[in-house]
């Protein structure tokens, strides 16, 4: 049921470049995996609440206080250096608006 057109569409949604050869390969492999997960169609899930979080904890809050001790100033500079492109202390990105 997964054809090459669908693989291309999904890869586009996921922002992943794939080559023509890979499109065919992924289509076959994903089809096999989806064939395998068909066993779930046999399970009775009527009225079953889906599990989003296994321990049932929700809304764990903490104060949104800046913690200056956790990241010294030299590390802030170091963070910016991790970007592929930076200039004058800013992270540089390709043009977003034409």
């Amino acid at each position, binding site marked *: 049921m*997964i054809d090459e057109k*669908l*693989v291309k569409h*999904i*890869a586009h*949604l*996921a*922002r*992943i*470049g*794939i*080559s023509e050869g890979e499109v065919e390969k*992924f289509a076959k*492999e*994903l089809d*096999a*995996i989806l064939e*395998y*997960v*068909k*066993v*779930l169609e046999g*399970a009775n*899930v009527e009225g*079953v*609440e*889906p*599990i*989003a*979080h*296994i*321990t049932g*904890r929700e809304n*764990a*809050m*903490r104060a949104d206080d800046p913690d200056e001790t*956790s*990241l010294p100033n030299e*590390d802030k500079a*170091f*963070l910016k250096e*991790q*970007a*592929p*492109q930076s200039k004058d202390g800013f*992270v*540089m*990105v*390709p*043009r*977003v608006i034409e």
Partner: protein
Amino acid sequence: MELAKLSIKETAEGFRKKEFTPSELTAACLGEIEKKNPKLNAYLEVFSEDAHAQAKEADERFAADSPKSPIDGIPVAIKDNMLVLGKRCTAGSKILEPYIASYDATVVVWLKKAGAIILGKTNLDEFAMGSSTEHSAFGPTRNPVDTDRVPGGSSGGSAAAVAAHFCTAAFGSDTGGSIRQPAAFCGVVGLKPTYGRVSRSGLIAMASSLDQIGPFTKTVEDSSLLFSTIAGHDPLDPTTHPDAVFSHEWLQEGISGMRIGIPKEYFGEGLDPQIRSIIEGLIAKLGSEGAEVVDISLPHAPLGLAVYYLIMPSEVSANLARFDGIRYGSSVLRNSKSETRNQKQNLWDVYFDTRREYFGEEARRRIILGTFALSSGYYDAYYARAQKVRAHIKNDFDIAFQSVDAVLTPTSPVLPFRFGERAHDPLAMYLADIYTVSVNLAGVPAISIPAGYVNHLPVGVQLIAKPFNEAVLFQAGRAIEQVR
């Protein structure tokens, strides 16, 4: 005496009695690494200089009879998907090859505080996705037991490092079996704690509702000791439970009177008959030690793998969206030096080209599978349905633990396999996880313990307990060590 072969408990006693020092042990581990790591590729990076310095400080504490903790001076290895401040953290991926960690994972903070020596970072399947460590962008790790075979995965480097005596203990992460299966393949002890018991802050996320950090050790007692070091509530991980702490104390010795459930679904088709015979022999021995062996059923167990291979890639596709070639890590932007050319570079091309060039094949396969399962028109049939069946799987365990204290299964249906044997077929590789994934889906704790050998190849037994009952795993696990 070969210091690197000792357990934590034996080591700590040696330190305390001044029979040897943390520096001597660290040197012994580094010596083994130097000799054998080029062949095994368990470590991606070794911090020799830092380790010697940390060991020297520990030497002084023992000389003054004031160790920081029961694990002071113990050399440990960290899977390369956990951050160590100022060190490279690759997650086994080309896309993070240039990335330097800007903070310590909480687990690393707590280990350092306890005086543990961080020896280095270990190999893994890319972003912890795999069951053989063959999917690492930096080459596979070899199983120290048999170097023609895989060490399991994804934490294959950590399992191999402990088995090869490259460290006294190591840490890994377990999303669907990534600690327990390599522990079984390498013949060491591996613990997957209860979800919410160990902070994931500083662990590079794979599937956030399933990931948990845990130790690889030579003995069950060491596992308990390290678990007590890393368990606890952490404000930086809101999924950690307020009562997550664990105290390393032996509640009870022996297995007499303990009710051990044997789920028939884990002993069916696909289980290697040689593994079955070892596990059944072990069950009989536990029975003669006074354990009450009970046949049980986890009826939805056969659906576990299908649920896992929808939920996990869905979460992967969300978590790996952050690797975009803009903020950190590898990027096609780094390839072009000229500023004018960069400005002309199209934003979309940066995303597509970076993710094509620097993600490995398995990472891209799972991102695409997960994006599909979450996409409009397919969400209800795949992701939502999987989350509902997940409720059945959890419920199966809830019912089982009303009548038994622990569930016992093989850790893996197969023996450590040869390189390339499964790598060509994604589904065959996924089937290696069939006995471990349900534990993560249900959030329960489990441990893999060496149960015996088929020829020279180790076989692991898995014990599963109800949430927050790791103590039962350690108690039953110690009994297994004595009777196996």
